[in-house]
């Protein structure tokens, strides 16, 4: 049987200021009927561009320069735009990364499914609604008749992605292209969504191309894996073979860099640069940060009072219970210790870190840093407090957290200028160079603007800024979530080295237990504003007490050890 999709020698070019750039270079890709193929690679490897080329939805600057794309015998590179419009959605459909962006925000989700069905004449005005509801129930949305009338903003991220899947599968296409379908979703939601996709596609005998940066996800759901690097395919093999015995050097490096049970921090790095592990940090008994009964309440929104109540005539409204984002949590961090704060989105971990950071005021509770009650100082005036320099933060998105108009050296110098005691240009510059060397940022990059730096370099600038004033506590808010795995490996090692060198304490906020385990001594697992489990990293990961922690660990896909 011939392959459903056969890509041969595909080359995609983009016209840019500096001439044409080949984003994809002569790649071959074959997808058999009923097969799930994973396309794996780091950012810039050309994996998304490949799928756009197959769908013929490259943006203006891009064009297919060479090669052929055969879809059940039809050459898509030569197909007319009209033919392509018919094919998209009916024969080949796509799931995008951000489900909210893929849905029309002002149209009911049921209607959006109907639109697709009608466009491809799969339903008429009589049965469209019934078919749409049928699709909703197929993607396991509870109470589909009711949800038919929901708008995207009323649904959670996972639910939106289910709707997008329903849209993609509504016309029973033969090929589904899923471009990072679960990035940005929680691990348990990711598992539910991916299980659903694989169940539905298998039941219909569909082929799937799963584009992902996550080797674990590819290992768990794909029959065949294609590893891409800088626009070229470096390895194509059955999924089991790739993970059991990766042939290519690059694949091996990626495998090493992906955290999984049993891996060590140094083990993530390529063997040629791995060094001896840091000596275990000297955790003294002295408590640095103490958080007691911390509560953050937000007023509930969207509940409008009736007119009568507003004028005080009707029956008195029941006192509304505000929403508790953080519901009375207590924990301690000792000097030199790093504590992991783990949980899924909405569990209150970010709110907690913002309160400890003193960017948000708690509703009640106490925050003490080395004996000083910093919780009592309002967040508004904390910038001027002498305690400000003692707690610093490394942000989640290295791009967003750097002012696009500041050079790297200006960003690093900012805390020194505001709160440091250094005077004079030369002294500042010298300290910035010292910090850059400490975080492994080449000095000639110091005068560049953020858009001229790579993701890993921007992360280094952010770290240098955070440690500029020798803080006692650094909060790491998913510092590697936006980075490729190989860069993540380097950054995690850097953070560990810095801690050993400078004797700081870390509060590491993350959703990924495997990453947290590598860097942290103790872990706290949060859910719905409360702590469900607390203990040493080994204990929480190896023998969790709470059912929720077990569920969380089981949901993380990882390549076989």
């Amino acid at each position, binding site marked *: 049987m011939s392959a459903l999709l056969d890509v041969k020698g595909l080359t995609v070019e983009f016209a840019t200021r500096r001439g044409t750039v080949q984003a994809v270079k002569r790649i071959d890709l074959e997808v058999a009927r009923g097969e799930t193929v994973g396309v794996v690679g780091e950012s810039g490897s050309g994996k998304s561009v490949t799928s756009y080329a197959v769908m013929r939805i490259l943006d203006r600057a891009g064009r297919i320069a060479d090669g052929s794309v055969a879809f059940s015998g039809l050459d898509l590179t030569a197909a007319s735009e009209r033919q392509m419009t018919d094919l998209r959605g009916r024969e080949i459909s796509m799931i995008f990364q951000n489900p909210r962006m893929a849905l029309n925000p002002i149209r009911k989700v049921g209607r959006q499914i109907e639109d697709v069905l009608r466009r491809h004449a799969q339903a008429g005005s009589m049965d469209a609604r019934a078919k749409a509801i049928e699709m909703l129930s197929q993607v396991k949305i509870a109470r589909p008749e009711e949800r038919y009338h929901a708008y995207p903003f009323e649904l959670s991220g996972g639910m939106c992605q289910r709707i997008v899947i329903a849209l993609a599968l509504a016309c029973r296409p033969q090929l589904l292209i899923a471009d990072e379908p679960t990035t940005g979703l929680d691990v348990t939601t990711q598992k539910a969504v991916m299980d659903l996709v694989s169940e539905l596609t298998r039941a219909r005998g569909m082929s799937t191309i799963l584009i992902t940066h996550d080797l674990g996800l590819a290992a768990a759901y794909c029959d065949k894996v294609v590893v891409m690097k800088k626009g070229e395919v470096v390895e194509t093999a059955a999924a089991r073979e790739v993970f059991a015995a990766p042939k290519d050097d690059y694949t091996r490096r990626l495998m090493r860099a992906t955290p999984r049970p049993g891996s060590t921090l140094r083990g993530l*790095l390529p063997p040629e640069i791995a060094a001896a592990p840091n000596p275990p940090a000297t955790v003294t008994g002295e408590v640095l940060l103490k958080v007691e009964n911390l509560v953050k309440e937000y007023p509930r929104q969207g509940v409008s009072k009736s007119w009568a109540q507003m004028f005080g005539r009707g029956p008195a409204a029941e006192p509304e219970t505000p929403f508790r984002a953080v519901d009375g949590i207590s924990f301690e961090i000792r000097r030199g210790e790093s504590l992991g704060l783990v949980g899924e989105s909405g569990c209150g971990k970010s709110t907690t870190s913002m309160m400890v950071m003193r*960017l948000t005021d708690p509703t009640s509770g106490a925050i003490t840093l080395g004996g000083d009650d910093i919780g009592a100082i309002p967040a508004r005036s904390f910038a001027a407090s002498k305690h400000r320099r003692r707690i610093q933060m490394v942000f*989640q998105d290295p791009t967003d957290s750097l002012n696009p*108009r*500041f050079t790297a050296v200006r960003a690093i110098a900012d805390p020194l200028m505001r709160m440091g005691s250094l005077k004079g240009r030369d002294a500042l510059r010298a300290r910035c160079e010292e910090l850059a060397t400490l975080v*492994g940022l080449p000095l000639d990059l110091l005068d560049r603007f953020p*858009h001229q730096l790579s993701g890993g370099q921007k992360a280094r600038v952010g770290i240098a800024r955070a440690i500029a004033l020798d803080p006692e506590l650094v909060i790491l808010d998913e510092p590697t979530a936006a980075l490729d795995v190989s860069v993540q490996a*380097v950054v995690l090692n850097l953070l560990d080295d810095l801690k050993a060198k400078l004797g700081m304490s870390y509060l590491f906020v993350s959703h990924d237990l495997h990453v947290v385990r590598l860097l942290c001594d103790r872990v706290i697992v949060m859910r719905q504003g409360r702590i469900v489990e607390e203990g040493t990293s080994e204990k929480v990961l190896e023998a969790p007490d709470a059912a929720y922690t077990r569920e969380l660990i089981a949901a993380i896909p990882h390549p076989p050890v």
Partner: protein
Amino acid sequence: MSNVDISAAVVSPPPAEPATAPARPAVGLAAALGHARYVATSNPVTGFAFALFFLIVLAAILGPAIAPYDPYASDTSAALAPPSMAHWFGTDQVGRDIFSRVLVATRLDLIIAVASVALVFALGGFAGICAGFFGGWTDRIMSRISDTIMAFPLFVLAMGIVAALGNTVTNIVIATAIVNFPLYQRIARAEANIRREAGFVQAARLTGNSEMRILLTQILPNIMPIMAVQMSLTMGYAILNAAGLSFIGLGVKPPTPEWGIMVAEGAGFIISGEWWIALFPGLALMIAVFCFNLLGDGLRDIIDPQRRT
């Protein structure tokens, strides 16, 4: 984007650079000029707008020096002469050379436009940034001021202001600025608002910056490009507004050469066949407005990160 920078490993610190830092790479002016050249050549219309802009500025600076005749000198023997080699744009009812008057008027019209745009940028822009960044009562007060201004037909409001304050160039500038205030206030407010909780703003709070300093060093530079585009687009409108006020007799007084007055003076003669008196100043007005609008589009291309590949 993110290169796999394993080579610059943590474990082995990067080789120490020579103590003298290398000269700053060409990231500032040179790069900006290079980018401007790229935009101008990739979009000829933008290049044309820039050329036109330089021509207008040149006319404003050198106008009185290169004008062939004195713009005030009347010569009744040559009144209402059609365009000729001696008088390129012809002469008006008292025999003044229209070409010289159009050329000399450039300076006044440009000054009015630049001054009013600068004024409204300072007032409206600052009010908007404060509203967007601080929110709350600051936002309410600033936004209601904008709403109040917008409740009037703008040109009528400008007329009212000039009529009330008196017929001077300064008052035209003030009136034009007030009329444009809501536009600037709203754009600055929206742009500041989306950056209010941006990562780099939070980071600046952590490094001990006061809120006012964050506003000036973090927010303002980032919304400047958008404001620059707006300034260019408003510049055309400001010229039109000033000319409009002069046309109906408010603002600049005759015999001062000003495009609006000249069109007004010439309007009466169109019926009797002397079309050149109104046409040429009108044409100058049109070209100036056209130029600033194209320039705005071009500036938007320059600052749009989407085009910066």
